[in-house]
């Protein structure tokens, strides 16, 4: 599904010096995997998320997504990939201000299919349990509800890859569990979930964990994933080889 090989990303700082945000990152993610990416701030998580999410291209190395080398794609081509194959979920929900839940879910269809399918949007809201909130505005919904709208929005173009950036960071425990439960369900459908988080409890839902430090992978761990609504059981960690 995902194949990064020797991906580097550096930014120019001033005239001649450059900052290496990512160095020599290589790993593979299979379809239907649930992967957590962790690491202290400044470790390169954002940069990696940008590249995985096709919002940026690597300075060197290759990124293959679903067998397609996207590492030299133009902005327009990357946008097409984002629209059709990647769903984003963020910590701060990021619903469009002044728009209803349904309109938020419809937004990706404007850029993806180019045709808004209202029934599909409503069906997805129904799926995340918000069929009665379709015409509510973002600020009329609770945090958990907003995040569920965001998940429905991420799913509307039926992408095989879901990128979740601290999806429970702004939620209480109960709402967090709801969200993680939905993510696990998406994984069982065959979608690949990549989760960026600081939170151990949240990370424990993932069967695999990549730890970043100073722009490089410092650990790649595999373990028995926690099951939804079973967060009390401490996960059993297995150290795997760095890939």
């Amino acid at each position, binding site marked *: 599904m995902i194949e990064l090989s020797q991906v580097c990303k550096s930014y120019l700082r001033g005239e001649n010096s450059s900052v290496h945000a990512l160095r020599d990152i290589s790993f593979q993610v299979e379809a239907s995997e649930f992967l957590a990416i962790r690491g202290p701030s400044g470790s390169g998580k954002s940069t990696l998320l940008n590249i995985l999410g096709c919002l940026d291209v690597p300075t060197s190395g290759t990124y293959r997504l679903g067998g397609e080398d996207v590492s030299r794609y133009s*902005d*327009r081509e990357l*946008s097409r990939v984002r629209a059709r194959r990647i769903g*984003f979920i963020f910590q701060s929900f990021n619903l469009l201000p002044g728009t209803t839940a349904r309109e938020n879910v419809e937004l*990706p269809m*404007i*850029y*993806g299919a180019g045709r*808004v399918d209202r029934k599909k949007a409503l069906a997805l809201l129904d799926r995340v349990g918000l069929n009665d909130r379709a015409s509510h505005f973002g600020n009329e919904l609770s945090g958990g509800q907003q995040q569920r709208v965001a998940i429905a*929005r991420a799913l509307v173009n039926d992408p095989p890859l879901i990128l979740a950036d601290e999806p429970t960071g702004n939620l209480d425990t109960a709402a967090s569990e709801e969200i993680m439960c939905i993510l696990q369900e998406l994984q069982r459908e065959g979608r690949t979930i990549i989760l960026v988080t600081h939170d151990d409890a949240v990370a424990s839902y993932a069967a695999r964990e990549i730890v970043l430090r100073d722009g490089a992978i410092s650990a790649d761990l595999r373990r028995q994933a926690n099951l939804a609504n079973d967060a009390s059981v401490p996960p059993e960690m297995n150290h795997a080889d760095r890939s």
Partner: protein
Amino acid sequence: MQIAAEAVLAFRSMARHRLRTFLMMLGVIIGISFLTVLNSLGEATKQESMKRFKNMLGTFDTIIIRPGAGRTRGMVSLTNVPATLKFDDVQAIISEVPGVKQVAELQNAFDMDVKYRDKAASTAVFGVSSNWLELRGDEVAEGSFFSVDDDKALARVAILGTDVQAHLFPGESSIGKTIRIGDVPFQIEGVLKSRGAGPGGGSLDDLILIPISTASKRLFNRDFLTMLIVQLRDPSRSDADVHAITTLLRERHHLAPSALDDFTMSNPRAVMAQVTQMGSTLSKTLEGVAILAMLIGGVVIMALMLIGVSERRREIGIRRCVGASRVDIMLQFILEALTISCLGGVIGVALALAGTNVVARLQKLPLALAWDVLAISAGLSLAVGVLFGIYPAWKAAHVDPIAALRA
């Protein structure tokens, strides 16, 4: 991209930021409305001054010759001109300058006492040749004008301007009645059609016309003229004719080569061009001001849009993540700028139409709405929207989505 869905979102965003949207439109509204009003009024003023000018000068294939060097201010009369233009000069011009078709002569005096029974008036008396009416483009409204024979016979006949008619004969016909100009009795043969106001705004109807021979021999006892109207066969050759007449008159008046002309010639075409030129210089300046207002409006649009972009970084990030390319984002913001500037343009034109109507009514000017100005306004609105929308739109397209969404 589905434009309709986008437009709904854009309008809702504009509705949410009503004040900002209004401020963004304001510059365009002011610029466009001023441009349209100024242009319409400029056009109306030009037409009006052309009309008044025509009122004063009559037809356009004529040259006017006045006695005296330099410019005599105001309307000339027997009391304020040198006695340099004689009847003989007129004969010479007619016989020796082939480009001249005919010449009308004028000998006039202001503030002449006129009496009819117990009514008295003080008015201008113009002694004119019988072709005067034709060369001035005037008409007789009632009765008839005098003939060449009347002139030759020193007939004491008079034609009244409408002001004099109204003053001496209120509510009755004057034809056939006898008035006294000075102490000389004149029989009224006709009444002129009203000509309204001259360029200075004064009435052109407060006068009496009598045959010039009668005037010079019976009334004024003068053998010089106050004005000649020379009609040309070919107005496009007026420069050559002016030269020929100048040479002839200088020769007849025995002027040394170094001496100034003792007469003044004006070519109505040139004066006309000057008046029109003056009008268009004025409206060009005002248009410049209006365009400046538009530019300021554009800068306001740009500044407020830049603020908008930094406030909407999150929205931009979301759109980018769900598949908007940089081009899509740029188009969105340019479309918003265009919508605002074009709405401003529409409001501006609407205000201008209202304003033009009001001013035209107050100033009693004919309303002249120039449709080409509307086209220019539309073009300018679009141009301002695109021109000042591009940079903020570019900024918007280069917002880092993840950074914006993590903030």
